[in-house]
């Protein structure tokens, strides 16, 4: 016999579908252990509900309202539109300038060689490695 496990809590809360609730009810009719569990679960729920929380400290509300007075809201107002407009302007300027910007990036081969080297060198030695990298890269290229 399979016990309904977590469906028992849902049964107590009345959140099962009609079909499921009927299945659980049929099971309960035959299973004393699950009937006992259901009674216990009801008692647990009652205990939890009965436990009260102390009143909040009265100084909390003024504290909350003060923080609202000093906090900065992030309004959705005109700010994003100005930002978007600024973004478009910047993009337009950059696009217009691109053909005139000289390529400053090193050749791809050099980057790859440095990558291979860096992968073999422990982090602590990277400082030194960056000094000797050119020489080593040249050796490696020559040895290939």
């Amino acid at each position, binding site marked *: 016999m399979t016990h309904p496990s977590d469906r028992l809590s*849902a049964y107590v809360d009345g959140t099962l579908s009609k079909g499921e609730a009927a299945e659980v009810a049929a099971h309960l009719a035959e299973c004393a252990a699950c009937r006992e569990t259901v009674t216990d679960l009801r008692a*647990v729920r009652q205990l939890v509900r*009965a436990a009260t*929380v102390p009143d909040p400290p009265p100084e909390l509300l003024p504290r909350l309202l003060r923080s*609202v*007075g000093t906090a900065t*809201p992030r*309004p959705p107002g005109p700010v994003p539109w100005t930002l978007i407009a600024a973004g478009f302007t910047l993009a337009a300027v950059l696009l217009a300038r691109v053909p005139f910007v000289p390529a400053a990036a090193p050749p791809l081969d050099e980057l790859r060689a440095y990558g291979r080297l860096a992968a073999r060198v422990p982090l602590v030695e990277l400082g030194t490695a960056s000094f000797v990298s050119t020489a080593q890269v040249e050796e490696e290229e020559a040895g290939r």
Partner: protein
Amino acid sequence: MELEADALGSAACGAADDPRSEFARLVEAHWRSAYRFAYRLTGNPEDAADLVQQSAEEAFRAFYRFRRGSRFDRWWLRILYNSFVDRIRQDRRRSYFALEDLAPSLLAGADSDPEVAVGQRLDGPVQRALDALPAEYRAAVVLVDLEGFSYQEAAQLLRCPVGTVRSRLHRARMALREWLRDYVDAVKRGELR
């Protein structure tokens, strides 16, 4: 006279549109339930007040995202819960453990005999038992049993499937049943209400 009426009208509109006064009004209406939820989650008044304060500040910063006409208390509680989860994550010692790993010894003082339990305030033992639950289990119990959330609403706030809420709730109650055994029996005998 007409001018005066107009001035009053626009002043009233201005007050209604000002997010600060609108937010302050909503906080005033719901701070008690926020505190109650925070107290249930943290188990003590100091952390509860801090959590309410922190979540109110976060809620105010995000207030422009609040959909007017939806329930502010639910929205605030979600922010509060997220702040709480962040705190738990920062405290690694309390963040990852299974329900089964918890020893009932965590509940020192909750195992008094039923004779003592009769007529006694339950807040202490029950809150201690709730505190001993992993946070996400405790949250499910607090939301459904104390705040009256439906499983769907709790799932939405906890950002998990409804089935997860159901199983966490059940496992949490089964643990509470063992830890509060004497009280449960007293309730069943009708000695505790």
